[in-house]
């Protein structure tokens, strides 16, 4: 068993021990469930289309707020309590530490998404359902979550205060989720193209339409990797 997996298991357990996981799962399922099934205007019955578009759009926004809440403690709390010293003096590399933290947060999000699979099954029985596009939508949510977790762990490694980590992750997230898209539509030519390439939402929209483009995959993997590499770098500076 590698050190990363041992760390991930402990971290995942601490989410469930501290109620964070239950609050997240309940709120996530409550939010998405309400908008998919009950909201009236815009829910699946109103749209009369057997797809998960509403779910993907709501999940995208919900995860944008939830992931910083999951990641804020990952490194900041270890720094505050001093347990980082304990971890870094065990037979664990900085990279294994960061990767373990990433896996824990990613697994928690994956569990949350797994609980929405009944939506997938139910809606697929309601009409003409495009499995490919909807599976791609789930893939998009996983990739988007990975990117936000990368950003969140980076923010958490910058400070020993969880609130600061949360706000930092949210601020960086706003740029990728929202601001770059706005700037892309507000400008033209090369500048617009650059901002559009940086915008996380445009890549997510592209995948959730069912088009799995290598450009989008590379984008999400790059944002995640840069977040984790920077975190590793910051942790190694002590």
């Amino acid at each position, binding site marked *: 068993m590698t050190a990363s997996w*041992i*760390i991930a298991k402990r971290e995942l357990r601490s989410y469930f*021990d501290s109620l964070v996981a239950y609050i997240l799962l309940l709120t996530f399922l409550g939010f998405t469930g309400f908008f998919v099934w009950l909201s009236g205007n815009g829910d699946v019955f109103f749209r009369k289309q057997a797809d998960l578009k509403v779910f993907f759009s709501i999940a995208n926004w919900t995860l944008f707020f939830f992931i910083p809440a999951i990641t804020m403690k990952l490194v900041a709390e270890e720094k505050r309590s001093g347990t980082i*010293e*304990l971890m*870094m003096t065990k*037979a*664990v590399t900085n990279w294994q530490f960061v990767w373990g933290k990433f896996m824990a947060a990613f697994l928690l999000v994956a569990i949350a998404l797994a609980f929405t699979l009944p939506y997938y099954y139910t809606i697929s029985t309601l009409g003409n359902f495009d499995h490919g596009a909807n599976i791609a939508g789930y893939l998009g949510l996983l990739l988007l979550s990975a990117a936000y977790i990368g950003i969140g762990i980076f923010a958490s490694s910058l400070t020993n205060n969880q609130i600061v980590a949360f706000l930092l992750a949210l601020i960086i997230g706003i740029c990728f989720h929202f601001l770059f898209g706005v700037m892309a539509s507000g400008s033209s030519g090369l500048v617009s193209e650059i901002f559009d390439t940086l915008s996380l939402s445009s890549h997510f929209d592209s995948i959730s339409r069912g088009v799995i483009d290598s450009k989008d995959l590379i984008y999400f993997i790059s944002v995640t990797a840069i977040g984790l590499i920077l975190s590793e770098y910051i942790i190694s500076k*002590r």
Partner: protein
Amino acid sequence: MNIAINKLTKSYGTQKAVDDISFEVKTGEILGFLGPNGAGKTTTMKMITQYLVPDSGDISINGKSIATSSTKSNIGYLPEHNPLYLEMPVMDYLSFTAALQGVAKSRIPDQVKNMVMMCGLDIEKHKKISELSKGYRQRVGLAQAMIHDPEILILDEPTTGLDPNQIVEIRELIKTLGSSKTVILSTHILPEVEATCDRILIINRGKIVADGTADTLRKQSQGTQVLRVKIEDGEMEDIKTKIESLSTTLSVDILERDRFEVQSIADIQSNRIIFDLCKQHNWVLTEMVPFETKLEDIFRNLTTN
């Protein structure tokens, strides 16, 4: 495992926390690290455990530099403030640290059990760490440091927060472990160093100011023999003059009635010659006590300017 520290330096900003220190510790040796707050003890320990990277100098373990080979699994470390995952139960926490330190899965339950017994955690083993008293938390800290049976133990103030009985138990434990392992411990409690350590290293402002056994340090700081004697049945002034006239005497002070403090010249003992003097004058020598410099005094002398 032998540890060799060679010209180690570490600065925080412009302040040198550790300034060009070198020393060696051998297998089976318990080294006591003494020094006032901010002297550089903890920084040195953090560099040995590879938590901090030195600005210059090298640390080698069994001849291999830690800069090029990872030796973390050979080291057990109890940090100064004993950080722990408070939300975890004791048993789970020890299993977690054992797994992280590479203890084989099949051996983990036995190893955890051993540590629980060795550190006296049996009654508290199912509690969450946050529910434990400071003393028990300290024991958990010690248990996690020793869980993988490391050959080197680095303990930063291991007896902080323990009651007197626990202190004695932990000292005995460290002594037992120290016979087969290399142990470096730091403390502010001077009698503890004397009771536990084979060798003492005093560090001040990042530099080593003394290195040796408690006895060597006493001799070094004392230089000359000081005796406190009580001589009866004679005139005080007469006794004083006669002792002063001895060839081995450097100075004599009258402390109180019939009591004198005699300082001998360097490297010479005056016990016999004083006894002979008393015999010769029919004085009764009722007390002769060599004056021992306390470790506290040595420490104060070396670390205050």
